[in-house]
Every structure is written in C-alpha cells, then in structure tokens.
C-alpha cells in the first residue's frame, strides 16, 4: 500500500498540470500530499517494532538481475512520514503562487514522488533512478519560481535564479555521477543490485576502501557536507518557499539517507582504519567525521554574520546536517539513531524556518535583508510569524521538549563514545547556533523603531489560514517528536539492529 505514495504523487502531478484552474491545481496537490501523509500514518499505525515490509517485489530487468523492489523498514518509514508532513506543509505555504500555478504543483509533486521512491526502494538501481528523477524538478522549481533579493536589477534576477538552479542541479548530478560509478562497479562484482543481497555480498576489502568514499561523497554532496555544501545556501535562498522547505527538509535527507542506506550499509569495511595516518587521520570514518564537525561550526559561524535572512537559515541547515553526518560516523547505535532522528527533526524545523522567512516575512515585506526588516518591528505587525519563529528557533537550537534536543543529544552521546574531543567542538557549534538564531530573531522581529518606517505596517496582509495550518502542523510534529521520541526511536533502533546493518555492528556499537 505504501507504494501508492509514489504512484499518487506522479498521478497528482499529471492531474495538477491538466487542472483547469489554479485553485483546482492547488486542491489536487494538497489532496495528493495529504493522501501520501495518510498512507504513511496508516503504515505507522500498523507497524510493529522491527517490521520489514515488502511492498512490491517483481523482476524488472531480469537480464541484469534488477528488481522492482519496494520495501520499508523503520528508517524508511520515519523518512516517509517526514516527506508526507513536509510536502503537505509546503503546499499550504505555496497557496499564494499565481505564476504558472499548474506547472508549479506538477514539478513539485514529481519531486515528492521521486523522494518517496528513494525512501522505499530496496534495489539500488531503482533507488538511483528515483534519486535522479528528483533532480530535474528542483532545477525548474528554482529557475522559474525562485526568489531573489529585491535590490537585484530585473535582468539580473533571472540570471541569479538560474545560477542557483544550475549550481544545485550540477552539484546533485555530479554527486550522483559518483554514486553511479560506485553502483556500476558494485554490479560488476555481484551482478545483482538488490540492497539485501548487496548488504550480504562480501565485497573485497580494498574495493570497499575506495567504493565507500566514492558513494559516500556522492550522496553527502546532497546532504550538504562541507566543503561540498555551497549549493545549499545559494539554492535554498533562491528557491521559492515551498522548494526551500523541500530542499532543506527532504532533499538533503535523500543525501544523508543514501550515505547510510547505500554507502555505509553496502561497504562497511570502507570505514575500517587504513593502517596508516595522514595528518593524524587514520580512516575514512575520521575524515568524514572531521568534515561533518567543520560543517557544524562553519555553517553556524557563517550564519552568524549573514545579512540575508534566508542565508541565515540556509547556513544553519549546513550546520544541522553536520550533526546527521557526525552521528553516522560515530558507528554507535545511539549515534546512528540520533542521526536518523536529526534527519526527521531538521526536516520539520528547517521547513518551519523557511516558511516563516520565505512566506510569512518575505512575501509581505519583499525584503530578506535583516537590517531592513528590523525597523519594521514585525513582531507587532505579524505576531503569528514572530511566535512561530521563536518556537522554531527554540526547536532549532535544541531546547528540551522539541525534537532537535533528542536528536542532537543522541548524536553527542554517540560522539562522546567515538571521538570524545569532538563533543567540545560540536558544543561550540551549538552555542554559535544559539547566537545566530537569537541575532536573527532580534534583528528581524524586534528591531528599533525608526521614524520613517511606519508606512510598512498597513501594507502587510494578515497571516492566511493555509499558513496557520502549515505552521501548526509543523510545530505540532516537532513537539510531538520531542515529547514522545519513543515513537520514532522504536522505528529506528530495530531497523538499525537488523541484519542489513550487520557490517556496522562491530566494536563501539552498543
């Protein structure tokens, strides 16, 4: 039944494209996203800890041993839920799109369908196919409907959008080229691409040693790993609100999911020590942990000095995704659990932050410049946005009670076991995170009143119903995940302990 999340999304895309009116397209899109969410929720309700559900499994290209194999374990289901929620919220926050509305929702739903497909695929070829399907709609969503700073000249606006869109598409495609190379090489050994078979296949250790970094980096490009993160802030900032919500909320998770599901699950020996040290680093695991750590601190520090509100959130995504990658590299049960939890948590929180910045603030004030927003005293003009941003910021900096706390705390626990000194550096990253969230909050919503800025107040339309629904949905999710983390950990932990991840369950795993 979960397979219908994919089919419905693609069918919905077609229906939205052919919809007779803009309103019809919106409704079709919303219904499609809600249906996907409902299907994931039903699956959650029927879920027993440790389940592995095979949805569809038929021979697809028998000559090459490729199957059409859709299945879900706890990790998949967690991310399916995230996709359903983020997709629904994204549509609610793009209710005001008037330019080529039908096409917008068509591209949007194709992207969603691809994302669902990646999370459900248990054949590497199928997973890769869905992964690439998601690239093209991203390009068009940004290039056609993207937002750019107000001070850009008219002819410059298109160029800026296209630059960001092309950068994103090329980074994604270059990453997926690395993955393709790894996949082709894996196939030439095993002659099957079923993830279950590949996870059990004894690849030679020296092959894993170079295939692992190849595939890991390929996916990590999309997860925003430093130094391959530069597409993320530009892309997020230039994208229309719903697309930035999806990019930060879901698409970056595709990368992280690929790192875990493909790179780490298939080539676990690639994480072993090299047997020698280069600059004090003795394995790919330490290299990527260090890059993740740099991403955490670097992203937060850069976010601290941005003038553009959207870039603040864009760099904060880089920082938070660093926690995911750091958690993966701990190779401890709790660290990996935290990493998957952080994927979910950041997906919701980043969506919320981008919704406030892009939809609630930018679409009303038409500026993203923190220095210009200050004098508008938005806390008085659109208090709903201010309250939402305060709550989202609290979730983002990891206050207890919100999902971010559970996630980052687990990652840090895992890191303490694996690389004790990194905890302190990551802690600095969290402190800087508090600082930039505070700064953005004060500057954007609680600025000093200036004499000439009073005129803006009346021009702000009130927060609309779809926006309120979307914000409440996302806030409720992050609170629910923060207050009842066992709902998700009961999904994630059994999946991590399944035989699929056997290769990782050594040494520090507990």
């Amino acid at each position, binding site marked *: 039944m979960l397979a219908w999340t994919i089919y419905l999304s693609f069918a919905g895309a077609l229906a939205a494209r052919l919809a007779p009116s803009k309103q019809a397209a919106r409704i079709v899109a919303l219904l499609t996203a809600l249906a996907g969410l409902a299907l994931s929720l039903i699956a959650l309700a029927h879920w027993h800890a440790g389940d592995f559900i095979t949805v569809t499994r038929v021979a697809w290209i028998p000559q090459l041993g490729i199957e059409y194999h859709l299945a879900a374990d706890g990790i998949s289901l967690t991310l399916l839920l995230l996709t359903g929620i983020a997709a629904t919220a994204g549509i609610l926050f793009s209710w005001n799109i008037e330019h080529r509305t039908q096409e917008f929702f068509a591209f949007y739903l194709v992207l969603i369908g691809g994302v669902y497909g990646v999370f459900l695929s248990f054949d590497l070829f199928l997973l890769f196919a869905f992964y*690439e399907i998601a690239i093209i709609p991203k390009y068009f969503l940004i290039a056609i409907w993207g937002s750019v700073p107000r001070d850009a000249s008219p002819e410059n606006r*298109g160029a800026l959008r296209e630059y960001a869109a092309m950068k994103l598409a090329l980074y994604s495609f270059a990453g997926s080229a690395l993955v393709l190379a790894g996949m082709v090489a894996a196939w030439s050994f095993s002659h099957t691409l079923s993830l279950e078979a590949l996870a059990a296949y004894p690849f030679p250790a020296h092959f894993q040693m170079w295939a692992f970094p190849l595939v890991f980096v390929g996916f990590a490009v999309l997860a925003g790993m430093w130094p391959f993160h530069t597409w993320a802030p530009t892309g997020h900032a230039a994208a229309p609100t719903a697309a930035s919500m999806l990019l930060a909320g879901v698409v970056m998770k595709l990368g992280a999911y690929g790192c875990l599901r493909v790179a780490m699950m298939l080539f676990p020996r690639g994480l072993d020590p090299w047997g020698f040290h280069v600059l004090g680093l003795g394995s790919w695991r330490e290299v990527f942990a260090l890059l993740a750590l740099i991403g955490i601190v670097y992203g937060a520090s850069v976010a601290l000095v941005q003038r553009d509100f959207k870039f603040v959130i864009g760099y904060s995504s880089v920082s938070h995704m660093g926690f995911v990658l750091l958690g993966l590299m701990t190779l401890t049960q709790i660290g990996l659990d935290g990493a998957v939890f952080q994927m979910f948590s950041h997906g919701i929180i980043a969506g919320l932050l981008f919704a406030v910045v892009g939809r609630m603030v930018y679409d009303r004030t038409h500026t993203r410049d923190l220095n210009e927003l200050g004098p508008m005293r938005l806390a008085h003009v659109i208090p709903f946005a201010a309250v939402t941003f305060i709550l989202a910021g609290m979730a983002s900096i990891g206050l207890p009670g919100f999902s971010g706390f559970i996630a980052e705390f687990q990652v840090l626990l895992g890191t303490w076991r694996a690389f004790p000194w990194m905890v302190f550096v990551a802690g600095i990253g969290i402190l800087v995170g508090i600082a930039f969230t505070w700064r953005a909050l004060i500057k954007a919503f609680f600025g000093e009143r200036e004499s000439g800025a009073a005129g803006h107040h009346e021009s702000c339309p009130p927060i609309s119903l779809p926006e309120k629904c979307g914000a409440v949905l996302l806030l409720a999710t992050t609170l629910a995940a923060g207050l009842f983390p066992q709902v998700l950990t009961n999904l994630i932990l059994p999946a991590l302990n399944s035989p699929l991840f056997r290769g990782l369950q050594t040494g520090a795993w507990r």
Partner: protein
Amino acid sequence: MMSYADLLHFTLPEIVVAVAGLLALTLDITVLRKSPLSNRLRSAVIVALIGCVLAIHFLTRAPHSYGLPDGMFVMTPLTHIVQIALLVLAIFTALLARSTTFTGHIGEYIALILFATVAMMFLVATQNLLLIFVALEFLSLSLYILTGFDKQSRQSAEAALKYFLFGGMSAGFLLFGISLLYGLSGSIELTKIAAALSGPTLDPLLLVAIVMVTIGFGFKVAAAPFHLWAPDAYQGAPTVSAGFIASSSKVASFFVFAQVATIALAGATGGGAFHGYSPGWVPVLAIVAALSMILGNLAAIAQTSLRRLLAYSAIGHAGYMLLGLIAHTQQSLSALVYYVITYALASLGAFGVLGALESEGIDRIADLRGLSRRAPGLSFCLLVFLLSLAGIPPLAGFFGKFYIFSAALSAEPHLGLLWLVLLAVAMSAVSLYYYLRVLKQAYVAESPVREPALRIALLTRLTLWTLAALVVLLGCFPGVLLGWIGLG
C-alpha cells in the same frame, strides 16, 4: 550452392524497400506530375510506409538464421532486430518528412531515404568486406545527396560538400585498410580473416590496417578526431536529413564496425586496461573513445546553435558507444545495440522537434525562449528527448548508459576499464549542463512579447509523441528490447 531463388527469398525485405523507393520515384514523375505538392508528398510517404511495414512483416516471418556462402549474407536474430530498428527509424523519418516544404522533388527525397535504408540493411546483414564497402558507399552516396538536397540553401550545399570530401577521404582509408586485411589473410570473409590472422604475434601491417579501418569507420560514426564534418552537416542539412544521419546511419555504422572489429579482428584485440596495455584495436579505440567523450561534451557547452549542440553531443555519445565495443563481450555488445537504438530514437525525436520549429525560423538556442507557453506538447517532447540523451531516468538513455558502463566494467578482470568508465561518467555529468541550457530556454525564459501558439501539423505531433512514448517505455521496460537483442 546458391540459387537465384534463394537469393531472392533471403533478400526479400531489402527488395521490397528498394521497390518501394523506385515506386515512389516513378509515381512522382509520372502519374502525379501535375498534382499539388501536398498530394505528391502524401502518396510518396504512403508508399514508403507500405514498403517498410511489408519489409518488417517479412523480417518477422523470416527463419531464425540463414545465409549465403562467403559471408555475403548472414542473417541472425540480432541482425533481424537491427534491421527492424532501421526500418522503424525509416518510417519515423518518412512521417517527419511529410511536413517538409523545402523541396519540390518529393519522390527523389523519399526514394533516397528508402535507398539509404536498403544500403543499411545490407550493411548490417553482411560479413563480407567487399559487400560491406559497397553497401557503405551506397549509403554514403545517398546521405551526401540528402544533405545537399536543399538547393536554395548555401549552407546545405556547403554541408554536403564538406561531408562528401571528408567521406571520400575516409572511404579511401577504409579501402586501404580492407586491402591490407585481404593481403594479410587472403580472404574477404570476416570469419576466414579471423582464422588466418590468429597468430601469436601481431603483424605490423595488421596494426596499420587496424588504424586505417578505425579511421574509416570512425568517420561514419562521427568519433573524434574524425568528427569534423558532423557539426557542419548537422547544421546545414535539411532537418529531416540531419535526423536521419544522426539516427539510422549511426545504428548501421556502429553495428558493422562492431562486426568487423569483433569477428575479423578477434585475434588482434589487445588490451586497453590501465595496467594491462597490449597492442591491438582495443587501445586504439580506447583513445578514440576518450577523445570523443571529452571533445564532444566540452565543445557542446560552447554552442549557440541547437543543431551544432546536438552534433557535438552526438560525438560525445559516440564515445560512450565505443565503450561497449571496446569491452567486446556478449553483454557489452548487446548494451551497445540497446544504446544505439534508443539513442537513435531520442536523437531523431530531437531533430523532429527542430524540424517542426523550422518554419518559425528557430535555430539558435535563444530562439526557443518561451516555447513551453507556445507549444506545451512539443516542448514536453523536447524535454523527454534531451533528458534521455542526458541520461535521466526513467528514460531510455539512462538505462543505456548504466548498462553500457556496467558491461564495460565487468568485461576486463580487476575493473580494467575503470579509467574509461570514470571518464564517461564524469562527462555525462557535464552533458546535463548543456541539455539543461536548452530546456532552460524552453521552460524558464519567457519571451518579452506575447507570441501566438504554434500551429504544428497533426501528423508531426503524433509522430513526435510516439517517439517520446517509445523513449519512455523502452526506459521503463528495457527488458523487452534486451530480450529481443539477447536472442542473438
């Protein structure tokens, strides 16, 4: 012993297509001489369709494998599939030619397309060097004329002349290579050449022959550094001719190249692995493939004309396809056939879209601005064709790339061809950039003035939609075509 009855029986499909060509020609200059252009065009296309469909019918009824002595005519299930693919491409070409307006010599035009198809069918079905050369020249001659068919256009004439001069030169090289092969082995039949040449050491003359043959065929498949004619020919030729050259002739040329290399030169393969170099045709082709991939894809980035962009991308694709030939395993050759057929469909489709836009004077990439508003269906077809060429799933080009890369990688022990596969993967990542540049104009850029919707002939639209559907279906269900190819 061969009897004339056998000969007629075996070559019935080819005869049917040739007769259809003659019929289209005679009808046009006799009965229909005074009729309006549209009627003449319609009847010529109908004759061509009937001929091709009949030929396909005979091919599907033909016995499994048969042949004539001396490798003159060798039919296997694989050649059946390739011939059928050629006929299908000829059908699509004829349908696209239905709305051409550039010439009054309809009969000749359609007849030449059919004659070229006959030449290609013979080219595919023979394992005899003499017949290969004759068929290749027959094909080339038809293609030169098709390129220069637009008499009003200087560009067309220039393109034809360039194509002809380069073609004549390369035919000379090929003939020289063939004569060397004959001199070394005393035979013109591919299997006998292989038997005569299977010695422990490589004759230096054989290496010369290999280089000559590579030059000759490298020209036909437009591989760098023998590609110089392609951008000009693609740009100057009438659109339908360009599409035909880019699709059908590519299929046939690659197939015959593969036959000569893998059958006749089986004893002189050599090794192209990074650590396992040894002289033979594989290292020669590896260099040609690497050059084609790099040059084709990088040069395509700088193009402003759509047709030149497609030409350079075709050079890049020739590089990928050579990869399948270099690996020369059963699997990699079936990957090559799959790739070249699906490539031909997408490429013909892209030229078909260009042809439909030709009346609007659209040639440069920038002219496509706002196309998705003016012709949503047409731009969607363009999207499908270009993304298939870029290798985006679920389109046929994606599976083609995956299959050819993985077959190449598993051909040599210890991932010997990894360097070439990595290069191919990297270059295919580059290719997305220029395909997206085209699509960006069609979908993202908006024209400053509101232009009216384009009116495109129903038949052209149907043809393009069918081609797009084929590209999607072959990508979603590649097993079907692979099953047919795998019979061989």
